[in-house]
């Protein structure tokens, strides 16, 4: 009995293959996008975790200088001979060929077990080879691929290391980084002897640092991943609209079957159970397809994401995807749960349906105007909530909550708005056919409203994100011009060479401006400190958002500090606030400048003050002013004279092009997700139209009987679809603008620390409008074709059957 009942239920899908396909496709697509985003985030987070776990930084306390400067090796020996169980680490960056590597030197002998992810004693490495020059570079497979053909010490592979990181012996690292006798920090073994001399006596210059539970990297990139996650959810929500409508339809159509099954004695409980089993099977199959699709999507997107993260944050993420069962399992679970939630209301209705209820397969119980109004009121409440959250909330999560409330609110209002628009159309139109067209469209509205809401979400997201990206680009390009006024940027390789290059350039250029810098911890976060010279280049071009009138004089005389926008926002700094520098120095903030694309806080002081406060600051970079046409020749001479590699002498145009490339890649992912979301929405409309077309015969037959040809009716169907899509697009524009405003003024500020001016790009909307119309036509095409080819007998039957 159960088996037969199941077969009967399933037979519905055999007769409605397309509906079945839509259901599976909708669910699969939603799952795919969601799990793709999760997979990408998972890959990135795993990579950050690997980076954080390297040499046990996430588990071990460390000793370091307060400002992060290097410490002498003698301090390490002093601590050991005082009984402290510490192990030295030297960290630094070094280019091999064109590849920038993070060199991590450790002492495998004293390294605490918690910090040893790589067994240096393994047969293919060996302690002797590891510590004896040229040493061994241990790195991930991917990093090794990038270094093919480049001259490095012998390479060994370990999956425990994040991309771009090299583990080597402390002695080898000191050689490679040209830092003899220097260490970056000391790892404290978890268990220290009871009797040791106090730290303050042995190494007064060092401070204990707690294990980095959350790495700077994962904190910085959080916002990026939250952005992706939000997109994933949006796609999934749109996908669920499809599932909800497809399931609803199928349940309605099966009312007669259900009545019959119950009439022949199948218990209600068994019936419900069968339907749940059916849903589970369906959603599992669709979920599996979605997960597989998601893997493909993620693989395609990951290289772009990896490039963005490297460009934006210097975060190394592998470009290839590893299979994470948790991500895919969760994707499947979400698909199944989403389906069951979508179907819950329908199941409940069947459970409470009288045994012999009239088996009317009405597509949708026609929602009354009152219901639409109620829904719209809910929508307004959500919009108000969105406004309140945006006004009074704080943090990225609040930002996204406001965003979600606004989108959902707008979607809920849409059916009423469309209904009113259609009424208006009806009133303005003349002629019977036109009036019937509007009235019939309005009558169809409840059936299409879910799909249209999905379309609204997709269109608004597209318009909003597009506006945000374009505004960003416009601002960014202008800002690059201000920020990079010098013709050449030179990076020397040693302090000695730096001095020589400076002297050489001084007589051959208009100005040589040092860009010296160091990184310190300020306000509990890593902050870059730059020293710049007093020069018209800065006074005229620097992209100040806010500045005291004599800001540049204060900088020149070492009496003031500039901070970038993100630091100022994060710490709520205003002009005149004191900025704590090293050596007990505090100086007033005299200006705030925009610094797009930089994840870190930055302050600028006069170069003289930098050298005084931070004698160890890197003094390797210069900006060179020279007549534009002479720059290439000077660059050539400079490279020739000092044997500098190409990448160490860069002209302005190259840096700009590079920055823009990073920018483009960053938003390539956004664009791809945007298009995919729109695709899902188009499928939602197609699915709804398709299923409606089957039961609209009873409404079309009278019009046909009164003389409208099937061909004409089919055209009208397409026109109807276009009209609805157009109206939805009209509604999407203000929603999209609201979204863009939220992204620029709330989300970006929270996520990146900068606020961008909003620019409007009507041509982009036009393109989006055409896209919406095109997808509406495409969606309506097949049902319209079917209608046009319908046998007249089918239409006549409508009048014969009592329905």
């Amino acid at each position, binding site marked *: 009995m159960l088996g037969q009942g199941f077969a009967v239920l399933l037979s519905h899908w055999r007769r409605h293959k397309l509906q079945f396909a839509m259901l599976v496709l909708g669910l699969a697509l939603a799952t795919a996008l969601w799990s793709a985003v999760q997979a990408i985030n998972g890959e990135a987070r795993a990579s950050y975790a690997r980076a954080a776990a390297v040499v046990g930084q996430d588990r071990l306390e460390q000793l370091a200088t307060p400002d992060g400067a290097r410490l002498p090796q003698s301090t390490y020996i002093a601590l*050991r001979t005082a009984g402290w*169980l510490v192990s030295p680490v030297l960290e630094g960056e070094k280019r091999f060929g064109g590849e920038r590597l993070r060199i991590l030197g450790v002492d495998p002998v*004293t390294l605490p077990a918690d910090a040893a992810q790589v067994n240096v004693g393994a047969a293919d490495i060996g302690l*002797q080879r590891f510590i*004896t020059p040229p040493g061994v570079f241990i790195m991930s497979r991917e990093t090794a691929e990038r270094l093919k053909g480049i001259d490095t010490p012998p390479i060994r592979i370990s999956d425990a290391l994040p991309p771009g990181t090299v583990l080597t012996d402390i*002695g080898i690292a000191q050689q490679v980084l040209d830092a003899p006798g220097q260490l970056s920090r000391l790892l404290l073994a978890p268990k220290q002897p009871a009797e040791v001399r106090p730290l303050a006596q042995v190494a007064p210059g060092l401070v204990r640092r707690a294990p980095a539970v959350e790495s700077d990297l994962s904190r910085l990139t959080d916002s990026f991943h939250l952005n992706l996650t939000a997109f994933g959810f949006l796609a999934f929500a749109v996908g669920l609209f499809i599932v909800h409508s497809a399931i609803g339809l199928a349940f309605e159509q099966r009312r007669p079957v259900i009545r019959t099954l119950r009439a022949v004695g199948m218990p209600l409980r068994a019936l419900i159970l069968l339907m749940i089993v059916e849903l589970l099977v369906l959603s599992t199959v669709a979920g599996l397809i979605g997960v597989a699709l998601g893997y493909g999507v993620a693989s395609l997107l990951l290289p772009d994401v990896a490039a963005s993260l490297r460009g934006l944050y210097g975060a190394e993420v592998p470009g290839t995807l590893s299979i994470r069962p948790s991500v895919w399992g969760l994707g499947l679970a979400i698909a199944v749960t989403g389906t069951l939630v979508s179907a819950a209301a329908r199941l409940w209705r069947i459970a409470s349906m009288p045994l012999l209820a009239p088996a009317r397969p009405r597509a949708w119980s026609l929602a009354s105007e009152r219901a639409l109004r109620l829904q719209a009121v809910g929508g307004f409440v959500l919009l108000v909530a969105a406004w309140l959250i945006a006004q009074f909330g704080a943090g990225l999560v609040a930002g996204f909550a406001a965003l979600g409330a606004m989108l959902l609110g707008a979607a809920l209002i849409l059916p009423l708005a469309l209904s009113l628009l259609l009424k208006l159309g009806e009133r303005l139109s003349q002629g019977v056919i036109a009036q019937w067209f509007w009235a019939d469209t309005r009558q169809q509205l409840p059936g299409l409203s879910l799909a249209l809401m999905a379309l609204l979400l997709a269109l608004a997201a597209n318009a909003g994100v597009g506006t945000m990206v374009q505004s960003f680009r416009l601002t960014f390009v202008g800002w690059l011009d201000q920020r990079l006024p010098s013709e050449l940027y030179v990076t020397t390789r040693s302090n000695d060479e730096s001095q020589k290059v400076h002297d050489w350039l001084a007589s051959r250029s208009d100005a040589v401006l040092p860009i010296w810098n160091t990184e310190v911890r300020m306000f509990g976060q890593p902050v870059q400190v730059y020293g710049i010279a007093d020069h018209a280049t800065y006074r005229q071009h620097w992209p100040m958002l806010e500045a005291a009138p004599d800001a540049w004089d204060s900088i020149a005389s070492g009496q003031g500090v500039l901070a970038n926008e993100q630091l100022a926002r994060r710490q709520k700094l205003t002009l005149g606030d004191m900025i704590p520098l090293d050596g007990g120095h505090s100086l007033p903030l005299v200006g705030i400048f925009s610094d797009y694309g930089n994840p870190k806080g930055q302050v600028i002081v006069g170069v003289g003050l930098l050298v005084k406060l931070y004698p160890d600051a890197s003094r390797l970079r210069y900006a060179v002013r020279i007549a534009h046409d002479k720059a290439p020749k000077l660059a050539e001479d400079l490279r020739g004279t000092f044997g500098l590699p190409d990448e160490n002498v860069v002209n302005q145009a190259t840096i700009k092009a590079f920055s823009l490339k990073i920018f483009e890649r960053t938003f390539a992912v956004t664009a791809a997700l945007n298009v995919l979301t729109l695709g899902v929405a188009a499928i939602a409309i197609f699915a709804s139209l398709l299923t409606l077309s089957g039961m609209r015969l009873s409404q079309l037959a009278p019009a046909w009987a009164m003389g409208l040809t099937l061909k004409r009716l089919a055209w009208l169907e397409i026109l109807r679809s276009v009209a609805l899509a157009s109206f939805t697009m009209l509604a999407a524009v203000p929603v999209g603008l609201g979204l863009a405003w939220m992204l620029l003024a709330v989300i970006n500020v929270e996520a990146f620390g900068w606020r961008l001016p909003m620019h409007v790009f009507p041509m982009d909307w036009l393109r989006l409008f055409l896209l919406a119309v095109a997808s509406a036509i495409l969606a309506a095409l097949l049902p319209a074709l079917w209608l046009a080819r319908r046998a007249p007998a089918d239409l006549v039957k409508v009048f014969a059957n009592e329905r």
Partner: protein
Amino acid sequence: MNVRVLLLLLLMMATPALAQGFAGLGGDAQGFAVPERGVALSFPQDHDAHPAYRIEWWYLTANLKGADGQDYGAQWTLFRSALAPEERPGWQSPQLWMGHAALTAPQRHYSTERVGRGGVGQAGVTLAPFSASIDDWNMTSRAPVSDDALSALSINAAGDGFSYNLNLDAKGPLVLQGDHGYSVKSAQGQASFYYSQPFYEVAGTITVDGKEIAVTGQAWFDHEWSSQPLAKDQTGWDWFSFRFASGEKLMGFRLRDAGDGFTSATWIAADGTSEPQPPGALTVTPLAWSDVKGHRVPVQWKLALPAKGLDVTTVPVNADAWMDTQVSYWEGPVRIAGTHPGQGYVEMTGY
């Protein structure tokens, strides 16, 4: 003797040689210097490290009596293990160092270890003045320049739950083991250079779980270096350093293999005159076994050396004297009964 533990930081080397003998000590000499018979040891130079040899240790064991009336034992060892037969500057040094320190109380045995690399000042041996150290553990000469550097020492070490500071004064001469310091370790001829200072009187303090206790007693020092002290089929050893009430002393060991093993002994008269005994003259027999930290170890022994009328049995101060270090073994103080009562130390590896 000892083929004491040699342990080595070999764990870190973790070469396939680990499969051979205890702690890789059965490997080939591979370019390292090999001890030769007839080479005279000279002091103070031979107190120093011998980087051309693969392994070396400075080993001190002390039987102590506390002011609280209890028996205690203290061990202080610095091992050197070379990856290559040379010394190089700074971090490039192929010399690895390992320290083991233990304090045995009747109720509990404390042990701990330290590791470090040569070349950077964390660990090593210097001659003028003599000092062997790793981290904050030191064995330092207190002797006047005119005397042998080892005639007066101070040692200190600290670990989880214990520490000690001991002053040692030698009441007799250095003793060369084997054939003038050339100590044979197997029938195939594996050997080491080996000398001892078994005549120390000790005074100092130990700290056990925060409680400081004054102690006095006797100690025994060994310095041994070699490059392949074990034959390939030897799996471990049992080593004994006994001080008898008569003033006489015995150093003996058995290297275990699939067969009867290889025993060797040196009889030391009360004036320090040493009489090497022929291989096999000493017989050692386990009397009682005990499970210690998952290892089945003989904790009571019967030793017989008929040529000297010796027939004694041993009882440990604490049977749980397991060195819970990366290379682990049993090492602890024992009381001796029989024809020659006294006290001493026993070391057992490879169980």
